[in-house]
């Protein structure tokens, strides 16, 4: 056998194979049948059952729009952003993608999000509650342009409710849920003691210290547990008495073995499973847990109320700092923007929102799709009542000014300056939180000073001033400029 021809053939084969690899990764999606356009949607299979739900919905959409096929790409929730970023970098971006809250900003900062203003009509905007799509407060606009569309009801993202098992409370002689933190501690202690290792009075919602942040939102401005900054002064305030006491409350309960053991390694779904199993009597939670509990235990006597407040009285309300949380965005690289808009229009339709509400019990952005039904549903009516009683409009520096946006973005990139880790450490190691909080405040101040100087050096604005809303009273609705 002659070597040269064989070598040539082999080299060609290797080259072809390698180029094939590239072609496989980089080729655009084949179009559907003749004349049909394929719109790719990258989403996450969340909540449980979402995969089937979205497919059914898109099947219905395709039936009504024969020229458009919807291809769904699913990624696990915690990998969605990275996966979509990789798709953009490979030149294989989805036409539409789900990017929630800061995730949308991360995509927009890279120029990957297409403004939707050219497609939006007055009729479309009229679907949403009056005034909620104002560019200054919608939470969906950036630099005055509409960059995203919402899925859930505005208060849904920041609302927190307190769940309690009426039977377990009654067993320990309690007829009503705790109104204050002291009552919570006392009741939880009694219920855990009475439970004798079979049921427990209280547990944080998940590992880390999210429950601390939830309770602290009733004592100090929401920005303190969220970022360490008090928006009334623009200064670090992790050592605020309200936040410190929220941590200390949990530390005491942990040291006294009042809280359900093992919560330190729980994932996000464990609390509602334990509650539904009748082993956990009380816990603070985002409202979506309500429907999950009801699915697992339809007959459970579940009470839904507002979070207990500090013994000295409420210091703050839960924040309504924007009308909506961003969720659905269109790719700036989409070659089928008109068709993609049709899919977005469908995802913002009364029919879709109604179906989503019926399937998952989530209150969605289009109130007309669920309000009448929700008021008749005891669980959802309770959620609506808690929202009305415990939420108030609050300032949002990220929406208020470019400087505020720059500083809040910089803070978001430094999660180690948040109180979460220090609070969790304090609770499980039974160490006082105040010294750690004071240290964090010092680090935060240094970071703010450094960031301000860096922004100035780059010719950009952004300082503590942009984080200051001196007239804001966290016990009242915030009015911009008021």
């Amino acid at each position, binding site marked *: 056998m002659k*070597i040269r021809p064989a*070598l040539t053939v*082999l080299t060609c084969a*290797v080259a072809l194979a*390698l180029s094939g690899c590239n072609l496989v990764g980089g080729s655009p999606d084949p179009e559907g049948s003749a004349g049909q356009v394929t719109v790719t949607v990258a989403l996450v299979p969340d909540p449980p059952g979402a995969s089937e739900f979205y497919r059914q919905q898109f099947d219905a959409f395709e039936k009504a729009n024969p020229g458009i096929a919807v291809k769904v790409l699913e990624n696990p*929730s*915690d*990998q*969605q*952003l*990275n996966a979509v*970023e990789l798709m*953009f*970098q490979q030149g294989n971006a989805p036409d539409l993608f789900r990017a929630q809250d*800061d*995730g949308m*900003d*991360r995509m927009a*900062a*890279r120029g990957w999000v297409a403004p939707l203003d050219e497609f939006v009509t007055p009729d479309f905007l009229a679907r949403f509650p009056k005034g909620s799509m104002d560019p200054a407060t919608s939470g969906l606009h950036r630099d005055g342009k509409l960059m995203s569309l919402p899925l859930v009801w505005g208060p849904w993202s920041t609302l927190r409710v307190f769940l309690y098992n009426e039977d377990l409370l009654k067993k320990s002689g309690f007829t009503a849920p705790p109104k204050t933190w002291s009552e919570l501690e006392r009741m939880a202690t009694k219920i855990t003691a009475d439970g004798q*290792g079979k049921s*427990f009075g209280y547990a944080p919602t998940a*590992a*880390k210290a999210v429950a601390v942040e939830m309770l602290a939102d009733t004592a100090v401005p929401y920005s303190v547990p969220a970022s360490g900054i008090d928006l009334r002064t623009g200064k670090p305030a992790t050592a605020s008495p309200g936040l410190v006491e929220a941590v200390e409350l949990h530390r005491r309960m942990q040291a006294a*073995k009042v809280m*359900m*053991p*093992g*919560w*330190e*390694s729980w994932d996000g779904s464990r609390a509602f499973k*334990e509650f539904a199993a009748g*082993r956990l009597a009380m816990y603070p939670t985002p409202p979506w847990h309500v429907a999950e509990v009801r699915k697992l235990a339809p007959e459970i006597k579940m009470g839904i109320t507002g979070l207990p407040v500090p013994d000295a009285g409420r210091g703050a309300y839960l924040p309504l700092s924007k009308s909506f949380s961003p969720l659905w965005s269109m790719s700036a690289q989409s070659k089928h923007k008109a068709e993609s808009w049709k899919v977005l229009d469908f995802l913002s339709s009364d029919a879709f929102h109604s179906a989503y509400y019926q399937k998952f019990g989530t209150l969605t952005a289009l109130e007309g799709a669920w309000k009448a039904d929700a008021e008749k549903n005891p669980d959802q009516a309770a959620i609506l009542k808690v929202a009305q009683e415990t939420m108030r409009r609050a300032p949002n520096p990220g929406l208020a000014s470019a400087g505020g946006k720059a500083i809040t*973005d910089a803070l*978001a*990139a430094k*999660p*180690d300056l948040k109180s979460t*880790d220090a609070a*969790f*450490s304090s609770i*499980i*190691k039974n160490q006082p939180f105040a010294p750690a909080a004071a240290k964090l405040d010092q680090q935060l101040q240094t970071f703010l000073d450094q960031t301000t100087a860096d922004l100035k050096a780059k010719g950009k604005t952004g300082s503590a001033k942009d984080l200051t809303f001196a007239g804001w009273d966290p016990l009242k609705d915030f009015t911009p400029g008021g």
Partner: protein
Amino acid sequence: MTTTVERRAVRAPDHPRPVRRPGRFRRHLWSYVFLIPLVLLFGGFTIWPMIASWWYSFFDWDGVGSPTEWVGLANFREVLQSEAFWRAFWHSFAFSLAAIFVEMPLALVLAILLNSSWLRFRNLYRLVLFLPVVATTAVIGIVIAILLDPAGGLVNRILLDTGLVDQPVNFLGSTSTALPTLLSIDVWKGFGITLIYWLAALQTVPKDLQEAAAIDGAGFWRSLRFVTLPVVTPIAIVILLLVFQRSLNTFDLVRAVTEGGPDYATDVVPTYIYRYAFDPSLQAPRYGFASAAGVVFGLLTLVITLLQAPFLGRRPSGGKA
């Protein structure tokens, strides 16, 4: 029948042409050709990412587009000054120590036992011990969490029922027990593969050597000490390196069981790097910093491996039987 073959006379050329011997490259051309796919894949998926991570570690880069913001050694300084990095490094190192000082000797003892011809059902035992190796780590994570649950988990129920403890043990939720628990699970999960290494090593011991030792009157222990161990020592060095490398890079088990918690008590360098490179809660991932952490970790691993070299090169003297 015989055939006579007439041998043709070979006529010598008038001017003998010098025989052109193929060069060394030409002689081994096919060997090089067959190496091409390996070199391409190894270069593309191992060498290039290594070189790239060294390069990226000098930039403040979020992984999108080309890195442009050169920060020199700032990322390295931050890594070396990070308490969290060193804590994660010591945890990774603890996984190696557990694998070398617990898993390897235990696996050797069991391998010697399973290599004995008198033991019945040897293959069944080998299979059972190997099962954790092929079990999916995510499934192990779920099962372990259920078994070790302090509120009603099977292990705690047994411990309480037998009176060994009077309070449930919070195996995965306490900063003092989470790491030892993970180390134990890692030893259990990796045990099967180390056992297979040892079994392969033991099967290289020539039977005639063992028979000669037996004829000379050597019992089990003397035969083990003066025949088996000296023969398997060179392979033991390879096993040591493989186990060291594998255990130092433990990632999936930690991700599946504790995600580095509680309070970073089980955080290892790979989860530390993962957090900075891929954590969705970060507004912008820090690929440059994560690359620097990877480079520092790689260099530290290299140094530790080189520190073992003098010990690894030494062979047992054998002694007199």
